[in-house]
């Protein structure tokens, strides 16, 4: 299982990459493996704001649907438009091209309650 050391993780299997006050958000390798073939990414293209712990979208796979919960609160800067035609990027590159949204994090202390890679690995029972 791929769990990059430079990211922060939620119990619901989202990750955040923090650069200054910008957070890039996606789902983990574990999440994409659980869902398998993702066929549609349901994130409102006009999404303006997310609230920590609230659902901001969902991932439709053949087998099931995965809900996306915001790891932090913030203003949405960008929604990954490439996922519209290529939702499979989440399966093939969950920490890279499969990112979902970029946000301006409102309060960096939101990150304190997230897990580091070691804690997340433990959460997965590894």
């Amino acid at each position, binding site marked *: 299982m791929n769990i990059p050391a430079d990211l922060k993780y939620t119990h619901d299997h989202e990750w955040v990459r923090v650069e200054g006050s910008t957070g890039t958000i996606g789902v983990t390798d574990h999440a994409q*493996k659980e869902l*398998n*073939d993702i*066929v*549609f990414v*349901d994130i409102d293209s006009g999404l303006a704001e997310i609230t920590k712990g609230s*659902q901001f979208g969902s991932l*439709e*796979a*053949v*087998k*099931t*649907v995965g809900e996306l919960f915001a790891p932090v609160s913030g203003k949405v800067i960008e929604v990954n438009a490439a996922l519209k035609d290529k939702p499979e990027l989440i*399966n093939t590159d969950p920490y890279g091209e499969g990112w979902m949204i970029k946000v301006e994090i409102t309060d960096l202390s939101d990150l304190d309650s997230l897990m580091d890679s070691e804690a997340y690995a433990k959460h997965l029972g590894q």
Partner: protein
Amino acid sequence: MKKTPLYKAHEKLNARLVEFAGYMMPVYYTSITAEHKAVRNSVGLFDVSHMGEVFVKGEKALDFVQQITVNDASTLFPGRVQYSAMCLENGGIVDDLLVYRLADDEFMLVINASNIDKDFTWMQKNNTFGVELNNESDEYALIAVQGPNSRTLIEKVFGTEFPMEYYHFVKHSYNGMDFIISRTGYTGELGYELYFKGDEAFSCGLWDKLFELGADLGVQAAGLGARDSLRLEMGFCLYGNDIDETTHPLEAGLGWITKLKKPAFNGKEAIVSAKEAGLKRKLVPLVTEEKSFPRHGYEVESDGKKIGYITSGTVSPVLEKGIALAYIETEYAKEGAVVNFIVRGKGTPASITKLPFIKK
């Protein structure tokens, strides 16, 4: 947790394993969509050894099977299989099953893994016929070979021809092992199911042989994920989702296997009464053009009124559309009618269509 004799083969293929009905089973190997398409276009191999096999033997074996199942087993001859169901006295479905007539006085009943203990107890309780009942579920391995190239593949492996028709079977010996090979499956494709009492070495050996000789036929291992999407594209019921002890065969669309002219069987009176009173609800196929997909448990509405719920839903890999089975009130169950299923409080339109979802 139980493991099938093919567990090592799944590990070797890096399968995603999940607990299902007490067994560690492969849900997929690489991609559910790819596995699904391999079965539709070439050939897929499924380990379904978790399924249960109960043998019924005795002078009154037929009478017993007639009493506990809804279909007419008297039409079966040795070599013939039938899809059927067992019902409670109130008409609720105990399980759906395949009935194999092995000999005049012997049957094999193939039941769902999650119901093995319940079904066997139910059979014993209903055995007022003095038949011998043997639950050999743990001894039997079962490989399903499904897809247009399935016949070519098994003929290459076994070195003989299998010209039998749909829902017929033959007994066959291979490398000293007795097989029951039936032209059955849960995919809607040409397909065969191979029953044998194999240990790990024998089972994995056969699995590897199927791969080796299937390489140029496009063989692909397929997991429970593809098994579910394949059966749903055909509209086949899944026990625990679309049918259970709270549903009866007629509302589930299983009237074609429910032979009400048969003198007596468990649940007959209740099913006849339900029919005479008029069915309150029906299991109908839904298809949606929207990018919001139907899933098990979602409610179904018409003009804001709740009229039913979805029992199975997926994204059809062939149609690339959301498809589902749903129980809805009979007055709304009209082909072509548009209903809404509710995703996170929001209605998504879907139309009532007919089965199968994919035309073959």
